């Protein structure tokens, strides 16, 4: 299935990827080829919404109890990786103008 340059740009925006003209061309070609390959699935008969795995897989939750202070999960170990921070918070550029 072919995919247009406009679609490539739109998807890149949705995926928060900044891409240049060269990449637009190569993604257009690659994605088209991959979609072409996966199109064979259309020939397989499936019952409508027969799916899905998600219905059968269930989470096994741990007991909801206080577990802070476990040496493996200290706050400072997470905050130290922050590109920018203020006190115990991640500092990020403005979201709203």
């Amino acid at each position, binding site marked *: 299935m072919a995919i247009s340059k406009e679609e490539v740009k739109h998807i890149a925006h949705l995926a928060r990827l900044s891409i240049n003209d060269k990449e637009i061309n190569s993604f257009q070609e690659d994605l088209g080829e991959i979609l072409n390959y*996966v199109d064979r699935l259309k020939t397989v008969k499936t019952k409508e919404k027969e799916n*899905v795995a998600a219905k059968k897989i269930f989470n096994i939750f741990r007991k909801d109890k206080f577990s802070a202070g476990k040496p493996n999960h200290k706050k400072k170990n997470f905050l130290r990786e922050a590109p920018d921070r203020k006190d115990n918070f991640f500092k990020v*550029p403005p979201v709203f103008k």
Partner: protein
Amino acid sequence: MNFESLTIFDLHRLFKEKKASPVEVANYFLSRIAKKDKKIKAFLSVNRKKVIAQAKKAEENFTKQDKANILTGVPAAIKDNILIKNDITTAGSKILANYRASYDATVIKKLKEKGPVVIMGKTNLDEFAMGSSTEHSAFYPTKNPHDLKRVPGGSSGGSAAAVAAGECLFSLGSETNGSVRLPAAFCGVVGLKPTYRSVSRSGLIAMASSLDVIGPMAKTVKETALVFDAISGRDDLDSTSFEDYDVLSHEQLFGRDPKKLKIGIPKEYFPKEVDPGIRQRIEKIINKLVNRGFNVQTVSLPLTEYALAAYYIIMPAEVSANLARYDGMRYGLSVRAKKETNILNTYLNSRKDGFGPEVKRRIMLGTYVLSSGYYDAYYTKAQEIRELIKKEFEEVFKQVDVLLAPVAPSLPFKFGEKTNPVDMYLTDIFTSPSSLAGLPAISLPSGKINGLPTAIQIIGKLFREEDIFILAHYIEKTLKD
């Protein structure tokens, strides 16, 4: 002594008899890595200080009564998408080039508690485990120890090459589709892709969460089984991990009669694209098994040819969601102007500079198949086919206990040989169905063709790793006959 040629069991005996010490062995492997890895490049990082500290701890456990066990002091290598606290963990990506892990993955905690094993270092991989050759690593490709012009397979290429080159005795890789089995096959080592949910993924950098699983690699089946036993089991930190299931002890496991297992040969796994040498090798093994009285029958799994296509919808969909977390806000590469006024620029530029082409390709593809108007045509359809593939396996596993097949259609290929993405993806054609169905499978060396390793695959029922181990161990022994 050539410690690299020993099994874990041999080494343990030497430790117990005081014929070798963990520190001596750690130093031996450090200098072996220094010498061999210049060419092979299996490792992304080796932390000498930590290696020696762990080896000393292992040594203490041997001097104290009853503190040591079979894994104490055994040199291991860990794929660099598994977190080790305070060590750089890159996932083979520039976006995590300077990321120091905040905590230990559960499998690492287990290996530190059991033993401790001596972790020699972190091994190379395709960026975020996306690839079949390690050529997509943001740092450098790993070479196949059997032929430096050829790829080691991927994505756990570093982990497989490290075992094959004798730079450790076992390693951990991870698999989403073929990433343990393929490099194991290309490097001539044993690699297990365990049942989905049998090993905790807490601390494994996520790629596609309905498929990801951590798996062990070693020189022999028994060692692989030993490591699997050590890392598997229920973990509160992974809500998908399953309750403990009975893993038989070694004596129980390998004392069982392999001939009680019914073997199926799925005819769809032998299309004409399979290298004739690989096919011949498997046929020879099948004939041997038949001659020795095994129950072998041909079975059919008609949806095999659709599995890779379904995988290339489901996996990128999950990738696009999982990799949204790399936004330059909390960890990893953050590209932001000094007085950045718009957060969107940081998202766009961090991801542009941080991700390589294959990762971007999969994020794009995943975003596309999940986008409005295409969701049902692609994602829903692929999930429906995934269900049918599972059902197909369930039916076949009413007739047989295990399936025997090739791991890959070809022998290790040369660097740069597969430039087209779809060509590269086709390498995983025989691992896709079992990955989608969550089934356990092993890649077992079956000798060499023109100096290059070849392998067979044994696929088992859900949570029946033991069937796989028993048959694999039998084949491993009989191949030597």
